[in-house]
């Protein structure tokens, strides 16, 4: 076998593995989706679930499945896909796992803008999403302008982002403390993210954002992957670096902000999905879709665990926060050990 044939063969094998692994992730998402629909406080047989989904009125199941479980599960999947996609896009573009939108303040920007729109301006629905997206974009540009160095994100960008995020969180805390009818549940949504009180109507802006911004992001997938090699190499390979970067920022911020406006900043999903997806599929292909699937998986499983598997009911953000925190510390330990500049 010539060297060329060997390369082609290994490419093919890798491509097949990538497809298989991605398919497994899809299957897992569907399996957990089905599980959350049929098993909650009570068990609903799969055939009844199916009949509810097809629009039939099933006694004893229509409310639990159609009103409680379905909106929750659908929102979990959509938000998870958005967070996973946006997170990994930033991580790839800035070549740093710590540069995910929830750590460098973009989620906090979206969250602060959303809280402002809801509490102070009494807005609802799409208007809140527009506010959130604008807030996220402003923060992204601010952090980028303050710390941009040759495309890669050094520790400087991370720390600047963390500072911005601390400031915005104090704004959120202020607005929440001013709100007359603030309660613990709403507060928790804006502090860690939660799916409590999910409604199917909320899925519409999420779905629209996913189609629009997700499509834009996937359209840039090749350029984004090449940016990993460095700006100069990417440019030499025909990537229009500046344009790709702007498209990726707009798309990723649009995704994360729309999702944040609905569910709040669910802790660490954007940060965790990319590295987990990379562990699963390796460097066989674009990380965008696997990471989105991992995000959906994390939110679904985290919400299910928070509702039914733990002694107390936790909002999903607390579950994912406790899971993600040790990983964050581990990442820093590993980076310090190997002497790489994070």
């Amino acid at each position: 076998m010539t060297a060329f044939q060997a390369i082609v063969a290994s490419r093919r094998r890798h491509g097949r593995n990538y497809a298989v692994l991605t398919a497994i992730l899809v299957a897992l998402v569907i399996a957990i989706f089905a599980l959350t629909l049929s098993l909650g406080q009570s068990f609903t047989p799969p055939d009844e679930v199916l009949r509810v989904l097809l629009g039939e009125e099933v006694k004893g199941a229509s409310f639990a499945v159609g009103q409680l479980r379905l909106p929750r599960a659908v929102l979990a999947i959509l938000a998870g896909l958005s967070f996973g996609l946006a997170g990994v896009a930033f991580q790839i573009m800035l070549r740093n796992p710590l540069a995910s939108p929830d750590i460098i303040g973009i989620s906090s920007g979206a969250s602060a803008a959303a809280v402002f729109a809801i509490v102070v301006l009494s807005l609802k629905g799409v208007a809140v999403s527009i506010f959130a997206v604008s807030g996220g974009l402003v923060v992204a540009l601010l952090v980028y302008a303050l710390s941009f160095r040759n495309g890669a994100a050094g520790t400087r960008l991370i720390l600047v982002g963390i500072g911005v995020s601390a400031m915005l969180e104090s704004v959120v805390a202020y607005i929440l403390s001013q709100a007359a009818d603030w309660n613990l549940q709403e507060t928790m949504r804006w502090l860690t993210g939660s799916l409590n009180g999910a409604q199917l109507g909320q899925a519409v802006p999420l779905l629209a954002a996913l189609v629009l911004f997700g499509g834009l992001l996937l359209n840039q997938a090749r350029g984004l992957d090449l940016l990993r090699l460095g700006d100069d190499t990417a440019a030499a390979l025909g990537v229009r670096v500046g344009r790709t970067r702007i498209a990726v920022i707009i798309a990723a911020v649009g995704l994360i902000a729309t999702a944040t406006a609905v569910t709040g900043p669910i802790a660490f999903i954007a940060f965790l999905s990319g590295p987990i997806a990379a562990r699963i599929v390796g460097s066989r292909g674009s990380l965008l879709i696997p990471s989105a699937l991992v995000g959906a998986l994390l939110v679904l499983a985290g919400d299910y665990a928070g509702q039914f598997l733990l002694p107390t009911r936790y909002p999903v953000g607390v579950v994912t926060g406790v899971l993600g925190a040790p990983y964050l510390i581990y990442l820093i330990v590993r980076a310090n050990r190997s002497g790489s500049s994070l």
Partner: protein
Amino acid sequence: MIASSLPVPARQPIAGRSNRVRSLWLLGLATVLAGLCALSVTTGSRDVGWADIAAALGGGQDNIGQAAVSLRIPRTLLAVLAGAALGLAGAVMQGVTRNPLADPGILGVNMGASLAVVIGVAWFNIASAQAYIWTAIIGAGCTAGFVYAIGSLGRGGATPLKLALAGVATSIAFASLVMAVVLPRNDIAGGIRSWQIGGVGGATFDRILPVLPFLAVGMVIALLSARRLNSLALGDEMAAGLGERVALARGVAAFGAILLCGATTAICGPIGFLGLIVPHLCRLLVGADYRWLLPFSAVGGASLLLLADIAGRIIARPAELDVGIVTAFVGAPFFIWVVMRQRIREL
């Protein structure tokens, strides 16, 4: 690599500042503090006439105005104590770690103290003030050790940015844990939520009293370590050459700072960024000599926290804004500024 992380900008003409000028600055700062104390007692979300203020200072509680003022007195005292403690702790930490980004909030020490207190309240039903304080101090100490260990892994030891990143990550991690511990306990969640923001409102003399000995010991240790911090600032080898026992000097000074942070957090909740801002501003005034910097940081910290508290009461009228929110809002841009000033080589 270590010498480059000195928090001392070399261009400062340190020798050019005579002790008389510094004494005058200190006196001026103390006057500002006194003025702020007066302002803090006289302003608040409720307007109170001068006659009532005077009566309240004499112990009167006859009408709602006098009662309001008599609530402001312990609050002012607490703000002064906590501000002094945090400013001092920040300066000591910057000296011990030779890190201009060090701050009890950024290094995660306050969050560690608060996690310990929350766990103590939720799982072990601690209730006495003494127990709170001890738990907070132990939490602060463990966290400081943990963050320093993570931050100093690898080549170059504990560089400013590695240490800051380790501290911030630990802080984020502990904040999630605090949420997880608090949520199941609806009975304590509300109280802990408001404590967690960090504030000096609702202070009473009864609550301040138990924390005084800890603050006093911490302040004495911190102030006495000024000379050691000066040697440490020269770098470990130089300090050892001057006859300093480096590890011991570090340990003692850090212990003082941990006492201060733990005790303050136990009573006020985690207040961030104050320990970062104050020493930097004071360095602009008096230079890098810790014998001057430490007392300045104490007085400056007290003034700044008091100012933040007064601002919080005026901005959000008729409600109040917790001082932790104000310091985060003002301190975060300052933090960003310090990060951006760091030399690129260290990034």
